[in-house]
């Protein structure tokens, strides 16, 4: 039964405003409830992120609520054997019994070593709750989820430059957009509805779109120019573009580099900054009076970004000069050959980008004269999920940085680095640091101190990463190898499917079998829940209250000009049977474990609660009560959740110009040279030496390199590189279970197929419709071939992560294919040693297995 059920909006025929969780974007929706049943969903016209629109994934959610295979009662495993295809022998039990078994198992783990518990929920609005639960329980192992899918390599590049988690482009003003391994503005990725609206408007007005992708995605199909890069060679392409920009065209934003970046910081031989002896501040060469001064010296008149100088006997160069020299050494012909994009085309695109940047132009906004840089590059998982992911991300991002198209009108922008109750900070070296609100414990810059791992995802070996959650299987399987002083024992799991979204399912099965107790809180018994010991029925997100706001502001409020709007997720209907929201189940477990008061105490610190809205740990509080306190902290004491009846969005106020375009208002600078990596490298090396590991740490370079993937050194007949693409109708592996989405996918010529280029198919004697096996050294999948021009000839491609096999998923079983089945459990040659990103491309052979 739902807590605060009496506060659910009443009426026989009513549209309840709430927040969609069909993906992570938190779009405002209105859900139509008639006689207690949810019958349809539409966009909320008053929610600024969705503007009355809604995507296919959101529309279909009314159907999910009524799926006949939803888990409605607690279940207990009776077959102790676990494995793929093994019948767990589910037995329906009472809620009390399920709780008693779970609490006893968790208490045992806690008594032994609380770190033996892994919390594994992908639910962004709920992180603050599961995070508090984890801390109260005493575990450091939290949020094991689909992160290896996502932005381990790309988020750090934005955090160290934009000072925030996510990136976007000022589409209304941007005249030349490059989307690189992402389909932002094509109903996927972040802020999808408003970004898609804005980009479509831009296309109508003649703005140019270039898409870099090995597959001609929806975005590439809409582009003016598609650059089909060979998978995993994006860094090579970016380096050529940087070289062309800096050394051939000589087009870069000098005032921006001087005033807004560490381009003028003097660098010694060996790569470190030249620092002031007394203050340790990095020094800058002032060309006006010909001497070095601290970067923040008030009399700094003309910072040099080029040249070579001698200071106190030391030969030094400005960081920008070091970058320039590094790029000069790039063999552009070789890099062009590697990425397979012709050099002349790269030169032309770079020139168009640089010229459209209109360096020197300004725009007046709200009485402020700001740089106008109508070019921007956004990049994400497609190019980032490779061996050298972070280096490639930074190389691409430098194209934005060097023309000054960062957080100014027209350019690339971070998603809300400053807001009504948070702001970006500055390091002692004068560089931008994200607010604690955005990244408290895991800032990639300045970073943490490397040490022997204490966390099962080995994050201590990646001190400048944001998260390394894809590495959990390594810590679970072999803790002693990494010096972890305890073993994984139990997992509370839900809303993420490790078996489908990681790597070779057989290897993942072995990992899950190492856990002595798995509690899965799920709506459907998917491939991961099949390994559970106890299953508790989860509510649909249209059946729950959530913390406030549902849309974390640094990720899910549209950046740039506009309003600060905060969305409230409230239940539209009650969950069926014994189902409860996973968040409430966490609270119930906490109470029975005796840690509820600790959670409240931690929450007072973690949940953005104003002094007058702190909670009394001695009393019990529902999620709605906590949400109301959070809302009042933002909106004031008069704010009542019960008044949220027509729209889930509450607008605080208009954004200021400083919030919309923060760069020129921030005191901090942006790094174009990652000097801080040098000391981290030394630290990591020392830890690795203790562990006896030999890792390649060349990734810790202040200037970006291209690092080949394991797939590039293929042999033994593995002559194609497999990747996957994202389609706008699907989210992760969950949407295939929806009948409407499945219908659209089946009608689509690509979604459930294996895509191979015409020439590659001809060589192998394959044709459209053939049943083919795609096989790597680590695994394989079988699917129907679609011969097409839309894929790089050296690559084979499929959509999403499909091909379910769980009995509990009748609609999606055996539909489409699962790229991740081709991947091994992460090995060192497939992990970015800088960011912890896992390489998602793999060498394969493709052969026919049937007509």
């Amino acid at each position, binding site marked *: 039964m739902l807590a605060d059920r009496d506060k659910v909006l009443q009426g026989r025929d009513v549209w309840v405003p709430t927040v969609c969780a069909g993906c992570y974007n938190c779009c405002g929706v209105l859900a139509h409830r008639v006689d207690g049943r949810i019958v*349809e969903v539409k966009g909320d016209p008053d929610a600024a992120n969705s503007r009355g629109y809604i995507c296919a994934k959101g529309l279909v959610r009314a159907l999910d609520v009524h799926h006949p295979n939803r888990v409605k009662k607690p279940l207990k495993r009776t077959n102790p054997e676990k494995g793929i295809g093994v019948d767990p022998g589910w037995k329906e039990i009472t809620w009390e019994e399920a709780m008693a078994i779970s609490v006893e198992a968790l208490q045992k783990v806690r008594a032994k070593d609380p770190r033996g518990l892994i919390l594994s929920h992908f639910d962004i609005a709920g992180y603050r709750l599961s995070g508090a639960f984890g801390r109260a329980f005493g575990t450091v192992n939290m949020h094991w989820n689909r992160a290896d899918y996502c932005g381990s390599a790309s988020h750090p590049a934005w955090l160290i430059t934009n000072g925030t988690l996510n990136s976007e482009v000022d589409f209304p003003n941007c005249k030349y957009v490059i989307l690189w391994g992402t389909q932002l503005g094509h109903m996927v990725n972040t802020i999808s509805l408003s970004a898609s609206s804005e980009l479509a408007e831009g296309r109508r007005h003649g703005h140019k779109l270039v898409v870099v992708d090995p597959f001609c995605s929806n975005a590439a199909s809409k582009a003016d120019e598609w650059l089909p890069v060979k998978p995993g060679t994006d860094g090579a392409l970016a380096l050529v573009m940087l070289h062309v920009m800096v050394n051939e065209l000589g087009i870069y934003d000098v005032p921006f580099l001087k005033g807004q970046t560490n381009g003028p910081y003097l660098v010694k031989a060996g790569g470190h900054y030249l620092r002031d002896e007394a203050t340790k501040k990095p020094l800058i060469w002032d060309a006006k009076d010909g001497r070095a001064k601290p970067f923040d010296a008030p009399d700094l008149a003309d910072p040099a970004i080029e040249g070579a100088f001698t200071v106190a006997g030391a030969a030094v160069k400005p960081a920008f000069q070091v970058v320039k020299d590094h790029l000069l050494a790039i063999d552009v012909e070789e890099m062009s050959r590697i990425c397979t994009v012709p050099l002349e085309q790269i030169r032309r695109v770079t020139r168009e980008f640089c010229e459209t940047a209109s360096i020197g132009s300004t725009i007046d906004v709200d009485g402020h004269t700001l740089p106008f840089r109508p070019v921007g590059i956004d990049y994400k998982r497609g190019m980032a999920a490779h061996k050298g992911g972070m280096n490639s991300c930074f190389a691409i991002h430098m194209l934005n940085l060097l023309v000054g198209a960062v957080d100014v009108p027209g350019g690339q922008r971070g998603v809300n680095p400053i807001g009504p109750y948070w702001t970006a900070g500055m390091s002692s070296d004068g560089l931008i640091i994200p607010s604690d609100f955005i990244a408290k414990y895991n800032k990639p810059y300045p970073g943490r101190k490397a040490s022997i791992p204490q966390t099962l995802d080995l994050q201590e070996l990646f001190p400048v990463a944001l998260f390394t959650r894809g590495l959990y299987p390594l810590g679970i399987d072999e803790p002693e190898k990494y010096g972890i002083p305890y073993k994984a024992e139990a997992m509370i799991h839900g809303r993420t499917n490790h078996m489908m979204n990681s790597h070779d399912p057989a290897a993942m099965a072995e990992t899950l079998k190492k856990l002595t107790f798995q509690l899965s809180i799920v709506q459907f018994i998917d491939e991961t829940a099949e390994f559970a010991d106890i299953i508790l029925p989860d509510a649909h997100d249209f059946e729950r209250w959530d913390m406030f706001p549902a849309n974390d502001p640094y990720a899910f409020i549209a950046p740039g000009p506009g309003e600060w709007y905060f969305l409230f997720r409230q239940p539209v209907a009650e969950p069926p049977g014994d189902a409860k929201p996973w968040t409430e189940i966490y609270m119930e477990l906490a109470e029975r474990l005796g840690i509820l008061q600790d959670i409240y105490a931690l929450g007072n610190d973690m949940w953005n609660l104003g002094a007058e809205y702190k909670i009394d740990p001695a009393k019990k509080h529902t999620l709605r009560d906590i949400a109301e306190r959070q809302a009042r902290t933002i909106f004031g004491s008069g704010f009542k959740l019960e008044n949220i009846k027509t729209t889930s969005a509450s607008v605080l106020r208009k954004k200021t110009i400083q919030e919309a375009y923060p760069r020129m208002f921030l005191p901090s600078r942006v790094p174009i040279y990652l000097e801080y990596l040098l000391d981290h490298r030394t630290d990591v090396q020392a830890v690795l030496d203790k562990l006896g590991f030999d890792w390649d740490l060349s990734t810790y370079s202040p200037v970006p390199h291209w690092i080949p993937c394991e797939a590039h050194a293929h042999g033994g007949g593995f002559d194609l590189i497999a990747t996957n693409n994202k389609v706008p109708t699907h989210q992760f592996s969950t949407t295939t279970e929806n009948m409407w989405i499945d219908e659209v996918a089946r009608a689509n010529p690509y979604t459930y197929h294996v895509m191979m280029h015409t020439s590659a198919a001809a060589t192998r004697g394959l044709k459209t419709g053939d049943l083919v096996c795609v096989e790597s050294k680590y695994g394989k999948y079988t699917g129907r071939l679609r011969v097409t021009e839309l894929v790089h000839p050296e690559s084979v491609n499929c959509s999403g992560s499909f091909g379910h096999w769980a009995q509990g998923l*009748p609609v999606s079983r055996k539909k489409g294919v699962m790229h991740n089945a081709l991947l091994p459990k992460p090995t060192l040659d497939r992990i970015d040693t800088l960011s912890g990103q896992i390489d998602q491309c793999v060498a394969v052979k493709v052969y026919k297995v049937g007509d």
Partner: protein
Amino acid sequence: MARYGMVVDLKRCVGCNACVVACKSEHNTPNGILFTTVLEKEMGTFPHCNRVFVPVLCNHCDVPVCAQVCPTKATHKRADGIVFIEYAKCIGCCACIEHCPYHVRTLVQDNRMLYPDGTTAFEKPVAQQILNKVATKCDLCYHRVETGRLPACVEVCPTKARVFGDLADASSEANRLVKEHGGWQMLPEKQTQPCVFYIG
């Protein structure tokens, strides 16, 4: 008199299929029946190639062949231009399905939306219940249009790729877009005079 129609802007459409699903939801169409789809047409050769996303639906022709061949007048053109099927009058003879040059009509074999285990998804109240053994297709959301609302596929489109309006009204946005961008119709040689125009 009004001549309701639609302008589809191919420049704006990104192939997200929100319209397809919105229509499905609005009409609660049975398994396998979509009143509108987004065709994906592959064009060109690598690397100068792409997919063109082409939303298609009933063209609500000014000269509807389907209505001409319907023996029971179940299919008829309304005064506002909407080509409408009155399911109660349809005998499922399929003449309209055979004659529609655009292949947008389907014979309903089973009017339910079923899960693999035979469970019905849910009973959503709809304007006109789809019956068994009748021809069915897009009704331009006549029930919404009559009350001043936009068709479901138009309302939902995040890129404004579908514009609904009165093509006979020179001041309507739809009329303006057709004129400004040289709107074209599908299979003009069939002389059916579709009320769905394409631009972009």
